């Protein structure tokens, strides 16, 4: 099963886990990314806004999910990414990989989130003390994504 969702709706973790577990598998690895308040010199993050490239974003995530499923023979791959405005503590992204044994699920989960960070067209804009600013890409993300090539 490949499940890719890009949506402004809250991410329902229990529902996503139930889908990932519903395959008679032995192992489910997940990663959840949350909005951090991340106090800075100009105050805490009040709002985080996620912009995406409709069509291309979904295609990129489906491509990643297929690549993971083929590479690790997974029973299921889930990638749910929120877009639009959100607040600290809310979920931005949820990825899950399920398989018979744990090694494949854990590796695929790390692969999915590392590659998502560099390969999927999303852009973050933070608002602190009423002022919005685009978040800069992290070089560490490129390094993490390169591990898998």
């Amino acid at each position, binding site marked *: 099963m490949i499940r890719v969702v890009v949506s402004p709706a809250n991410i329902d973790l229990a529902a996503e886990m139930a889908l990932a577990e519903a395959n008679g598998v032995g192992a489910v690895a997940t990663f959840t990314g949350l909005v951090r308040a991340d106090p800075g010199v100009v105050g805490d993050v009040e709002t985080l806004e996620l912009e*995406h490239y409709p*069509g291309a974003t979904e295609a990129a995530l489906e491509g990643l999910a297929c690549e993971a499923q083929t590479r690790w023979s997974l029973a299921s791959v889930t990638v749910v990414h929120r877009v639009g405005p959100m607040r600290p503590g809310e979920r931005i992204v949820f990825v899950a990989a399920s398989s018979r044994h744990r090694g494949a699920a854990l590796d695929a989960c790390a692969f999915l989130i590392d590659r998502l960070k*560099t390969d999927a067209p*999303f*852009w973050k804009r933070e608002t602190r003390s009423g002022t919005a600013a*685009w*978040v800069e*890409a992290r070089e560490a993300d490129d390094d993490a994504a390169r591990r898998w090539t």
Partner: protein
Amino acid sequence: MAIRMLYFAWVRERVGTGEELVDPPASVATVAALIDWLAAGSPTHAAAFAERGRLRAAVDQVFVSLDAPIEGAREVALFPPVTGG
């Protein structure tokens, strides 16, 4: 043939629109040449595209480097490095 340009994040804000139709001459063969051609025609575009090293591109929704050809392209997107997850 007209190309649909898409801009995202601060590129969109600096260009002032998320989408426009453009019709470059046939001599404009790559994404980089397209950027040069757009910048030559408008100071707003020139300012938006000033930091060439911070621009990324997709041709017909496929991520490409700036030296990629645009022959036959129907949609070219320009945007900063991605910051999802």
